[in-house]
């Protein structure tokens, strides 16, 4: 924990302000967050409210909490504090009194949440309550009329309902945390009596790890793609030596472990995680297993890229990143061979290389304990991503069989639908600003609440575009934010998801914006390009569209004619 004091925060480019509001002594969480944030490049600032001060901090609009103005707030109340005397003596009162108390507690919690939302733009993570394994009524607890355990379950259910209605509020399942690690480990009576510590400090790092799950997607640090080795990773043995019938997959104990691992990978794919292969093998040997082995859960259609060859694995990983247009920092790599693991760690430290043990029965557990695939909202685009990538492969095939790029673009029958920000598109617009690194003029990151605010401002335009072509729907892949003045519009944000770059879509959308400004009698459009490590794909965009550099900004004089690409169809909703 002392490590946190020595961290050189100034080198880190992403910033995060975290508030922690505990109802008991929760030392160590702050320090652990600090270390974990630094490890992934976040400059961490924190405010830890005094012991059991959460009520005052939330209810007083002038509190230190609000003047700190956090980005994310963790409100961690324990069940003993919430229920007070009733925690020990739930059966000293009637079931209808228990019901009444639960109602009161829920309305207290709801009030805290709503007051917090009113006073602060921060995301709020509130922990739910752990269900004690003990009950004074013993075995017949489950037969009790609205018993002790029913009380806590009811509070947890209602808390989840409140969070479902509030987009910036999330419930952290602390009850599940306790059942994962065990009540007897988490709650140490000695620490409780000596220091009112309700989470034993051996388990604080695990709690911090869980809670970091909320932080990563907020800052766009979540992983999008899993790259997998084949031999001894997706199946046991080496197909080149043991041959098709000799590999372990399905029947044996080890074989079952690989099937289980694949099933979990498939479930992540269904949630929008991209899968790819990086394997040293003869392509024919390996693809035969993928296509024909009866116990293969993952099929060819699930893989967005198949790098099966004898090339260097680091080179293959870079090729996957380029082919799929996703940053190396978004990739998790699974390979059973420690030499390969070390090689990738050295060569491409941005990739998260998983330390796999020899025993495949551990693979699934390791995959499930990775806390890097979380998103804070799930859009239609996320769920369709797997399919979209296989459509992308078909597009590449058409591109390779067509002679000129113009012919290719014409054959695609691209349709660009411009949409306004509304309750359906706002989550996706925010997500695009958080995740898009490459084709992004200004790389400004906005949470959902920011986009809601902009879209209700009459001096701003917030929009996005949905792209379709003959192979399918790519979903909403562009977003733009414009500040309006009578004489001049300023482009605050203009970005395009990398998977649709290079099809003239960006030109069509900018020409729509230019025409729109011209029709409203505006003279000029001002834009900015803020270079980052990753956004060079957008660098030439403004000059190519006819913007001219004046005093450090890119200006488009609307007296000039506006070019519109003719290979695609533009619709405005």
């Amino acid at each position, binding site marked *: 924990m*002392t490590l946190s004091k020595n961290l050189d925060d100034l080198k880190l480019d992403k910033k995060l302000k975290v508030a922690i509001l505990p109802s008991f*002594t929760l*030392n*160590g969480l702050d320090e652990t967050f600090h270390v974990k944030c630094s490890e992934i490049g976040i400059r961490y600032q924190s405010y830890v409210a005094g012991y059991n001060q959460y009520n005052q901090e939330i209810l007083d609009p002038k509190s230190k909490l609000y003047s700190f103005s956090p980005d994310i707030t963790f409100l961690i109340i324990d069940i003993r504090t919430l229920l007070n005397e009733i925690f020990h003596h739930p059966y000293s009162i009637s079931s209808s009194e228990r019901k009444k108390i639960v109602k009161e507690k829920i309305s207290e919690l709801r009030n805290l949440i709503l007051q917090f939302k009113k006073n602060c733009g921060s995301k709020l993570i509130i922990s739910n309550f752990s269900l004690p394994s003990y009950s004074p009524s013993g075995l017949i607890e489950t037969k009790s009329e609205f018993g002790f355990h029913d009380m806590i379950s009811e509070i947890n259910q209602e808390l989840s309902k409140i969070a479902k209605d509030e987009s910036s509020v999330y419930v952290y399942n602390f009850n599940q945390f306790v059942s994962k690690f065990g009540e007897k480990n988490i709650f140490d009576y*000695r*620490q409780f*009596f*000596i*220091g009112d*510590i309700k989470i034993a*400090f*051996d388990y604080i790092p695990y709690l911090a790890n869980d809670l970091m799950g909320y932080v990563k997607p907020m800052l766009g640090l979540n992983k999008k793609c899993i790259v997998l080795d084949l031999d001894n990773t997706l199946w046991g043995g080496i197909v080149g030596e043991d041959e098709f019938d000799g590999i372990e997959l399905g029947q044996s104990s080890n074989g079952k472990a690989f099937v289980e691992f694949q099933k979990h990978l498939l479930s992540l794919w269904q949630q929008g995680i991209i899968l790819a292969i990086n394997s040293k093998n003869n392509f024919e040997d390996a693809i035969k297993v993928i296509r024909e082995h009866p116990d293969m859960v993952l099929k060819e259609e699930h893989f967005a890229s198949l790098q099966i060859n004898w090339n260097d694995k680091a080179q293959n990983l870079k090729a996957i990143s380029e082919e799929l247009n996703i940053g190396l920092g978004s990739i998790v790599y699974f390979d059973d061979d420690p030499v390969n693991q070390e090689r990738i760690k050295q060569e491409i430290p941005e990739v998260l290389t998983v330390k796999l043990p020899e025993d495949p029965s551990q693979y699934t557990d390791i995959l499930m304990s990775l806390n890097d695939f979380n998103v804070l909202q799930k859009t239609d685009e996320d769920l369709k991503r797997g399919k979209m990538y296989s459509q992308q492969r078909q597009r590449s095939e058409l591109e390779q069989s067509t002679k000129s790029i113009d012919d290719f673009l014409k054959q695609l029958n691209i349709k660009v639908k411009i949409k306004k920000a509304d309750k359906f598109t706002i989550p996706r617009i925010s997500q695009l600003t958080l995740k898009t690194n490459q084709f992004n003029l200004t790389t400004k990151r906005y949470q959902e609440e920011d986009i809601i605010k902009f879209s209700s401002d009459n001096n701003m335009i917030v929009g996005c575009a949905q792209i379709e072509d003959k192979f399918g729907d790519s979903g909403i892949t562009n977003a733009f934010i414009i500040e309006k003045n009578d004489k001049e519009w300023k482009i605050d944000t203009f970005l395009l998801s990398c998977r649709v770059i290079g099809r003239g879509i960006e030109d069509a959308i900018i020409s729509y914006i230019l025409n729109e400004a011209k029709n409203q009698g505006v003279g000029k459009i001002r834009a900015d390009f803020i270079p980052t490590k990753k956004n060079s794909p957008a660098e030439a965009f403004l000059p190519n569209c006819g913007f001219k550099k004046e005093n450090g900004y890119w200006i488009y004089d609307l007296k000039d004619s506006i070019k519109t690409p003719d290979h695609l169809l533009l619709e405005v909703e």
Partner: protein
Amino acid sequence: MSKKLYDIISKVFSVQISEINDESSPETIESWDSFNGLILVDELESNFNIKFSISEIIDVKNVKDIKRHLNNHGVDLDE
């Protein structure tokens, strides 16, 4: 003598071993607060494979007290 104990104390409170003696206490070691005190308990228990009672924990006022309780649990510090 007592090297293992001093190593643990030094690590938990981030102080030099040379600064630790029998009279070291929360008054002389700045980082010895109640929370770090509990971390010390945890480290001692796992390193010496013992379990302290609450009264033993709250009885500790300085390093000499720690040695006394370790002795009571059969830990030989001169090993």
